[in-house]
């Protein structure tokens, strides 16, 4: 099943996993499954309208979902996803 890399800022809400295997057939399904498995991450990830907050980016096999089909991008079982969060630290 697809694997997603979790940013440091969210790991804490996901039992400290830096990677998770999530059965899902699209990016939006995968994010919904994440939010369902870890309810406290939902607020961080999604805004009041259920949209992915704009300081997050999702890459599938290194390609931004903007270049694919956005949140509707279909996933294959061997896909590797990266959830990228903005970080200000320096």
């Amino acid at each position, binding site marked *: 099943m697809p694997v997603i890399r979790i940013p440091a800022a969210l790991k804490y809400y996901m039992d400290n996993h830096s990677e998770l295997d999530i059965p899902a057939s699209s990016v939006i399904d995968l994010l919904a499954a994440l939010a369902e498995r870890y309810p406290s991450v939902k*607020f961080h990830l999604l805004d009041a309208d259920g949209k992915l907050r*704009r300081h997050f*980016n999702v890459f599938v096999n290194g390609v931004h979902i903007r270049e694919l089909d956005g949140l509707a991008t279909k996933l294959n079982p061997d896909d590797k996803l*990266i959830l990228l969060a903005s970080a*200000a*630290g320096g």
Partner: protein
Amino acid sequence: MELSHEEILRYSRHLLIPEVGLEGQQKLKASSALVIGTGGLGSPVALYLAAAGVGRIGLVDYDVVDSSNLQRQVIHGTSMVGKLKVESAKQRLLDLNPLIQVEAFNEPFTSENAIRIAKDYDILIDGTDNFPTRYLTNDLCVFLGKPNVYGSIYRFDGQASVFFAKEGPCYRCLFPEPPPPGLVPSCAEGGVLGVLPATIGSVQASEALKLLLGIGSPLIGKLLLYNALDMSFDFVTLKKNPKCRVCGPNADVTELIDYEEFCGVPGHDHEDDGSAGADWDISASDLRARVSSASGLLLLDVREPHELAISALRGATNIPLGQLAARLSELDSAREMVVFCKAGTRSARALELLVSAGFKKVKNLKGGINAWAREVDQSLPIY
């Protein structure tokens, strides 16, 4: 630009590399780089650029060296605690390489002074610690047509890229909007592994040198994601965002804006006096008076469990901020409550959350347990 015999000897190991050589070293001598922030990232970046012989290095910071900086900000030393960071860094750089020029700008980097400070530098290096300065640096680079050598760090995670709108995406193409205030913890709140900025800063310094020399393939259109715990390096490709408000075809941001307003947070990462606003704050000394009058006051500690080993207040209830929304039912809204954290920033957010959930008798301990340690109980450490 000719090199002296002294310079030829100093840079000998560069002159031996065909990609650099005498011509490349002369290019570096004629080049300039502005390092924004002399903290975790700025330290290695400035040290390596100075050692490499970049002819003119600018440093922007308005902070003073604090002993909590020294775990990672290796340009500064213990003898410099309390001194201006740019002066401390300048002294160190000129000791490392007296043959270069170092310009120190002891001022906050703002929309008012950014063009004046940056216009005469070839490249900008983003080593700042906050979102407003990052968006400012990005927009400035787009407007001035200069590359923005970007790095950021948090705990064990680092990112690096070169944002250069003439040839690829900018920072806003990737992050069109800053996170809602308070949602992304800073290093002052969440911490950072001391050596992490060395890895990311050395990537930034490498990219800066390549750009100044005009060699190799720069990290334009690519983002490096580094994780020190897994020792993983991932690269993702980035394209220009056609909807980018600053570098896209329909850009509507055409001059520098008020970045603190845009981000809703201040342009620094200090949390010495974390406040929820005068109406909601209680000082450490007022809290001591309240505690000793033995009311039914609830002390709510919203720090992470591992922070309790550093310092704690007796009788306090611990619910980490990240769990608070899900655990509100454990709290009695009729009871008076004082929320606290390390320095008052996370507790101010907790207070907002509590108030929006209908809690009315809530106060924020201004300055957090660190203020309590300073003003009330000196047996506790400050961290």
